[in-house]
């Protein structure tokens, strides 16, 4: 009976109402309100490596790598391309960087940027024949492509075949790798948010919602989609290239399912569409999975559990929940 008489009411905090549209912010408190959510996490992320031991720094790199993949997933999803194959991007970047270094002995300074760009181009080129597919069909192709590439590497023995390429150039200092990962991750996060809020992103989102309407506006949606594939592919390839040099190894397992599932799980947990959700999701999921390492193979089952639970019970994601708590307060009030 009590439930029927009362209801939960959500109200924006006054400070949000004021600072949302009025750009001349009045007080330092309001400036802080707006900036803190951006700067505090960035600062913590940047300072964290200085305090962590080597192993947990590795985990941090991992989190950033998966974060990049999750961001790239979210970016593609924003224009209606739901991928189940982030490992394609990851693997391509990893192999390009690895091959450049192994066969041509190019230094890291060259291989990583080249792998990033070339990986992006290659992803766009590989997926462009299937761009017109949507939803489940696109997902299936992206799921199969990395598997196919993996089998091709295994069968033909190119790039070291099953053994992969090892003894590649590493980073001169551990910290360099860590900061490269963190900065790449943060740049991607803010860049993607900026892109999506601009007119460019508006069109991408519109393609997701109704591609025919966009076409009738004279926009070449396939060209836009390939651009989006390039951007997302470049982010994933950067992650792959970084990983290759970090571990001085690249093998066909870079196309493994893990690199496809975990980013999706991270986005599902954090909440799609905002990028911050993807970032948050991977920052929660990866350290969590490391903490669960003692459980061995069970970990993957646990990710899948998290993925399922967050899709079913928390469709909007964790990030939205936190954001709501930050901006709004709730109270129970009596229904008159």
């Amino acid at each position: 009976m009590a439930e029927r008489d009362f209801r939960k009411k959500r109200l924006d905090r006054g400070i949000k109402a004021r600072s949302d549209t009025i750009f001349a912010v009045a007080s330092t408190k309001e400036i802080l309100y707006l900036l803190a959510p951006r700067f505090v996490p960035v600062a913590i992320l940047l300072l964290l490596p200085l305090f962590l031991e080597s192993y947990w720094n590795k985990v941090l790199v991992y989190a950033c790598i998966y974060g990049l993949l999750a961001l790239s997933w979210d970016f593609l999803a924003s224009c209606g391309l739901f991928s189940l194959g982030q490992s394609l991007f990851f693997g391509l970047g990893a192999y390009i960087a690895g091959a450049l270094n192994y066969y041509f002995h190019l230094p890291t300074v060259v291989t990583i940027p080249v792998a990033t760009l070339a990986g992006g181009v290659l992803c766009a080129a590989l997926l462009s024949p299937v761009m017109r597919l949507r939803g489940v069909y696109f997902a299936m192709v992206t799921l199969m492509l990395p598997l196919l590439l993996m089998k091709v590497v295994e069968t033909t023995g190119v790039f070291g075949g099953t053994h992969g390429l090892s003894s590649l150039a590493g980073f001169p200092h551990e910290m360099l790798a860590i900061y490269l990962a963190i900065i790449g991750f943060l740049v991607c996060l803010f860049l993607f948010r900026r892109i999506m809020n601009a007119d460019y992103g508006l069109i991408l989102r519109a393609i997701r919602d109704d591609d025919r309407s966009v076409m009738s506006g004279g926009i070449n949606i396939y060209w836009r989609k390939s651009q989006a594939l390039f951007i997302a592919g470049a982010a994933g390839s950067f992650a792959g290239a970084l990983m290759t040099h970090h571990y001085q190894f690249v093998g066909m397992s870079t196309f493994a399912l893990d690199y496809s599932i975990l980013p999706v799980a991270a986005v599902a947990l954090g909440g799609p569409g905002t990028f911050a959700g993807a970032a948050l999701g991977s920052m929660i999921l990866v350290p969590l999975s490391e903490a669960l390492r003692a459980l061995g193979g069970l970990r993957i089952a646990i990710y899948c559990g998290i993925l399922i639970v967050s899709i079913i019970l928390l469709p909007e994601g964790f990030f939205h929940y936190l954001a709501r708590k930050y901006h709004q307060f709730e109270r129970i009030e009596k229904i008159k």
Partner: protein
Amino acid sequence: MTTSSNEPILRVERLKKNFGGVLAVYDVSFELKRGEFLGIIGPNGSGKTTLVNLITGFVRPSGGRVLFKGKNITGKMPYKIADLGIARTFQMVRLFYNLPAYKNLIIPLCSSRVRRMRGGKYGEKDDEAVDLLDDMGFERDSYVPYKQVGTLPHGYLKRLDLARAMALRPELLILDELFSGMSMSEVASTLPLIEKFNREGLTIIMIEHRLKELFRVVDRVLVLNFGEKIAEGTPDEVMAEDEVKKAYLGIDVEIPPDPGTA
């Protein structure tokens, strides 16, 4: 109301389309002169919307040709056709409901056609969008252009769709049942707008069930029934024909369009 040029801007030659054995459009041919105002009528399911989709590239024809300004555009991608200057509205509006109204116009304003026509660069897109909406009767000082599309009433959506089509600066405008779902007063305020576009030289094809309004503005009418062209001519000529009467007898009622055919 016709303007000078005699060369046809659009030529449709024996266009055919069958959906899994069902003929939606059969052997339809017609020509359209620059600046002309053509009406297309026909009972429900007579293939009007399919015809529009065929012209604008949303459906691939099974046979026949479409020439725009002498150029073959049959089977081209819709964005390519839009880029050449054919804009359309949709029977069921296809807008982005979670965007503010004026942001909907950003999409055509970002097209390469608009950039070309502006001499190679984009302007202030937001301002331009609001200007366009202002022309359509969305007062710029009101809250309407800035409101989320989802919260606007249906009549506004139709006009917004029209604005979206006009933002492309088309040479040929195809209106697919623009007036369906509009109130009388909305129709009354929109119709002069369309007439004005036509007077300014825009070629228009209009598909409509509201024959009274249609006949007031068009130069020529084309009648479709079961996918075939059964008559063509001025409104009076057309309505005099027996076959047209038969096709329309008792069927001229506003039936809400079937979702999913758009």
